[in-house]
């Protein structure tokens, strides 16, 4: 009956459709097709950041990040060379290539690893740059979509030590690789010169604007700052740039860890039980061996509280398991491990900060003193700051451990303000305005550095064309923030800015305040020097005016007055003790009361003014004039200086 009524309904619909929607007649049913992952990602390429002008930037980024991950996982000092070259200006065709000395990919896995979306060796609970297994595939899919060129891959994996060569394309409708060519490469024809490694060459159709090109430069130079242990070679049509390795120290590679019980959900628990499916094992054992910070004892307690009884783990129903999950959510556990995180660390970040590589375009500086030897018009400049400092905090945000690292580089070759943001060692280049780091920088006052906004403006404002009214941005200061976590709270799918989650902002502020305090002495010293320079300059400008005024009015040896005055001024600036004719309180104001008042003041005041009234004239009317001389003043001024 039911079927009948449904049929009837369909007929009715069909009838009505005939009248008003003739097309409905031909398509009465909605088709539920499975879309291949590859098709989905190509259609929604923005999800992976492959949009419009950013294609080359994203491609380069993905390749470099893959290479770095591939080296770090085995503690190999990375040697990476990348290049982008335009091969067909009319049709916007570019060749992009990347070669590394990482662990390579096992020859059997190469086609899927390069072409099949959502295939990755990285689906584990630890910090890595890439996570989703999308980037490389995106390059392959775009190359297949837009060009007739194959993707060329050379791989010499650490477990095979034989170099394989592939020519691949992606079957976008099925998410499967098409292998056009596969061969082993003989030793004499080796492309990969290292013991192991990986090389990919792909052709892409893309446009590269000036802005994006600069973003690529930024990306590479910033990558080299947080990866100073890698040797990076970048080549494009403007030339070749080498970012040298500055240290052999590498960060401890991230270890895989078990999930934290507070982060448990039904799915993870079911998966954990499934791992033991062929063994008869108690649920307590499953819990304690599948999650961190969960002892067998604790597991027993969980089972007791959740009142689900005791049977073999695989016999529990979903409703029982959800009780376990709920209990775990309520329960207190030790803070999660941070072993799966790989912070940059003080030594490495400091190395990076001490020698910041900046790409200099010789086009911008037509009269470059040092045109690079090979005649190319770009070069690197290495910025050496006068001091750096580092601070970090480990915190737990939403049950996920997160490490905040903050660095500061000040002075030296650095002549302007810049904020660098990194997430899991990846530079973030876009959307700075909405990033939590931006907020942190504007909210931590520079008075933590022991200087006032006014001082910063007075001393640094003319050094640059910075129109910002934020005082900190006037300083020659580079601030680095690195957030590492297995799940970075990105603000948007573009992964370019970080939102403040939980107490993250608070701790970021702690780190920055810390660093401000540490550099305060140096900055104060610099300010002092600047102030002294300014003062000397002022003396140079104003002493002639004073000397003119004096020598105009009275007979005096002009030259001698000028010489001596300048001498006194210089000594004064150098803080050699030069008494002022009238010593004064710090605010430059004295309160010289008449005699009876003075005696009262002598008792309860330390001011040295009591001796300043050496000469006093009674003046007509009640206007007063006192240009005072003081014979006992020297000693007092000395005290004055000591107090300061």
């Amino acid at each position, binding site marked *: 009956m039911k079927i009948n009524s449904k049929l009837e309904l369909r007929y009715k619909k069909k009838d009505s459709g005939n009248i008003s929607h003739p097309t409905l007649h031909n398509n009465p049913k909605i088709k539920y097709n499975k879309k291949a992952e590859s098709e989905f990602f190509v259609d929604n390429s923005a999800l992976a950041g492959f949009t419009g002008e950013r294609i080359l930037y994203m491609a380069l980024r993905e390749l470099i990040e893959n290479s770095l991950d591939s080296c770090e996982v085995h503690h190999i000092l990375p040697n990476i060379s990348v290049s982008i070259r335009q091969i067909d200006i009319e049709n916007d065709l570019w060749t992009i290539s990347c070669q590394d000395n990482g662990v390579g990919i096992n020859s059997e896995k190469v086609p899927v690893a390069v072409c099949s979306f959502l295939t990755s060796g990285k689906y584990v609970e630890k910090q890595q740059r890439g996570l989703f297994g999308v980037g490389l595939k995106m390059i392959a899919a775009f190359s297949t979509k837009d060009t007739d060129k194959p993707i060329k891959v050379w791989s010499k994996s650490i477990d095979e030590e034989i170099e394989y060569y592939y020519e691949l394309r992606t079957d976008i409708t099925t998410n499967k690789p098409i292998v056009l060519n596969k061969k082993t490469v003989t030793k004499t024809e080796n492309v990969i010169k290292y013991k192991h490694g990986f090389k990919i060459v792909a052709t892409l159709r893309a446009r590269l604007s000036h802005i994006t090109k600069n973003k690529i430069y930024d990306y590479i130079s910033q990558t080299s700052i947080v990866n100073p242990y890698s040797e990076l070679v970048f080549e494009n049509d403007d030339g070749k740039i080498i970012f040298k390795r500055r240290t052999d120290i590498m960060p401890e590679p991230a270890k895989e860890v078990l999930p934290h019980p507070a982060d448990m959900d039904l799915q993870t628990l079911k998966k954990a039980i499934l791992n033991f499916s062929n063994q008869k094992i108690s649920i307590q054992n499953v819990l304690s061996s599948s999650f961190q910070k969960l002892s067998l004892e604790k597991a027993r307690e969980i089972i007791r509280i959740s009142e689900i009884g005791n049977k073999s783990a695989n016999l529990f129903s979903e409703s029982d398991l959800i009780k376990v999950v709920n209990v775990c959510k309520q329960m207190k556990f030790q803070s999660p491990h941070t072993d799966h995180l790989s912070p940059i660390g003080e030594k490495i970040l400091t190395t990076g900060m001490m020698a910041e590589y900046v790409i200099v375009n010789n086009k911008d500086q037509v009269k470059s003193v040092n045109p690079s030897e090979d005649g190319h018009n770009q070069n690197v400049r290495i910025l050496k700051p006068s001091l750096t400092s580092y601070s970090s905090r480990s915190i737990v945000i939403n049950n996920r451990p997160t490490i905040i690292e903050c660095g500061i580089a000040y002075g030296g070759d650095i002549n302007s303000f810049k904020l660098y943001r990194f997430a899991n060692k990846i530079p973030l280049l876009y959307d700075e305005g909405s990033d939590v780091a931006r907020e942190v920088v504007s909210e931590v006052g520079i008075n933590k550095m022991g200087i006032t906004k006014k001082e910063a403006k007075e001393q640094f404002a003319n050094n640059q064309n910075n129109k910002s009214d934020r005082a900190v941005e006037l300083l020659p200061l580079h601030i680095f923030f690195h957030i590492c976590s297995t799940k970075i709270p990105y603000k948007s799918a573009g992964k370019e800015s970080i939102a403040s989650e939980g107490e993250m902002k608070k701790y970021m502020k702690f780190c920055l305040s810390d660093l401000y305090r540490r550099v305060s002495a140096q900055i104060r010293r610099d300010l002092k020097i600047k102030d002294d320079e300014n003062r000397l300059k*002022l003396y140079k400008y*104003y002493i002639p005016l*004073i000397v003119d005024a004096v020598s105009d009015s009275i007979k005096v040896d002009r030259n001698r007055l000028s010489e001596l005055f300048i001498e*006194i001024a210089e000594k004064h600036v150098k803080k050699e003790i030069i008494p*002022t004719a009238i010593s*004064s309180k710090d605010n*430059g104001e004295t309160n010289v009361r008449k005699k009876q*008042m003075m005696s009262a003041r002598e008792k309860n005041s330390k001011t040295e003014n009591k001796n300043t009234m050496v000469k006093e004239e009674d003046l*007509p009317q009640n206007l007063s*004039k006192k240009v005072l001389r003081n014979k006992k003043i020297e000693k007092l001024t000395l005290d004055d200086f000591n107090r300061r």
Partner: protein
Amino acid sequence: MSAKNKRHKEIIKKIQTLMKEISNDVLIGKKMPALEISKIGYDNTFWSEKKKMLTLGDKKVIVSPNSTKKIPTFSQYLVMANAIRKLVDEEMESTIRGMYYATLSTVGDEKNKEKFWRSQEDSDDAIKAVELMTGIPREEFSVTSKPKGMISGPITLNVGGDIIDCSLGSRATSQLIPTNISDVEIVDVKADLVMVVEKDTVLNNIRKSGFIQKYNAILMTGSGEPDRATRMMVKTLNEKWKKPVVIFADADPWGLGIALRYKIGSESLSYDSDRLVAPNVKVLGMMFSDIYDYNIPEVARLSVTAEDINRANDMKKKPWLQGKQWQKELNLFLKKKEKCELDAFFKHGFKYLAEQYLPKKLREAGVI
């Protein structure tokens, strides 16, 4: 003229002494030179019960070229002192703006050029500093400001050798009170009383009505805040010529402030009070109570601002306004929160102010 030259020599001498002290500091003392100058402003101004006027306290400011800020200030003071010496030496005269132009220059090299004065305010300050350092008011340096005070009535002045009878044309116009007071001398005063009003518009109305002739009065105004010449003229008339002086200003805290300028002085010029303030002048109006006693219609009253209220509250605490009458007036103002200009009497007719209100007030005060 010889007396004047003697005074000029005195001024030059004082400035030279100052310069000598600066050069001695450097050449003999081998130390940073410094100037000690009386501090001016509210925190160094005190009420003198004895003199019944605001006087300068003992606070001093040290100006020595020992900090980034003070280097320019110090040289500005000396440059100005030298310019004034030159002006006096050349027997010339200048306005304060003229002094600003005479000393204009730039400092620094090609890369860092800065103006010697950021604005005329700086040079005005420097002139004040020279007054304080030498103890001589700037009028005696022949540095003056643009005149704005006006006078009309039976008084004869000698201005730079010419005799000016201010009663001539007094139905149609008033004379400007010259600011170069060293060139002005009062020759004769035939009036019975002196009446000072806040604004020239009100003065014109009273003058037109024939008040001067009817009451044999001198009419004066400072056109708002009175300049020094106007105040000195009031003082001289009151103290030297023994003429009763009455003051009328608007019925608001601002107007009362202006009226009191003549009677007790001001914070910014408290160092010169002895020359400027006439404690015996009478402030007769316009009282706040007059608004109601003379039935000023509501449309002609003005509502007060928060600033007015603050000012009135401040005034209530001032020692010179502790009299019962003043406290009553201020309390009335704070209660009613209304103020009124003298011009509001025009609502009662153009002649009301000069022919009804003022004579009544003067009779009440026993001046006529």
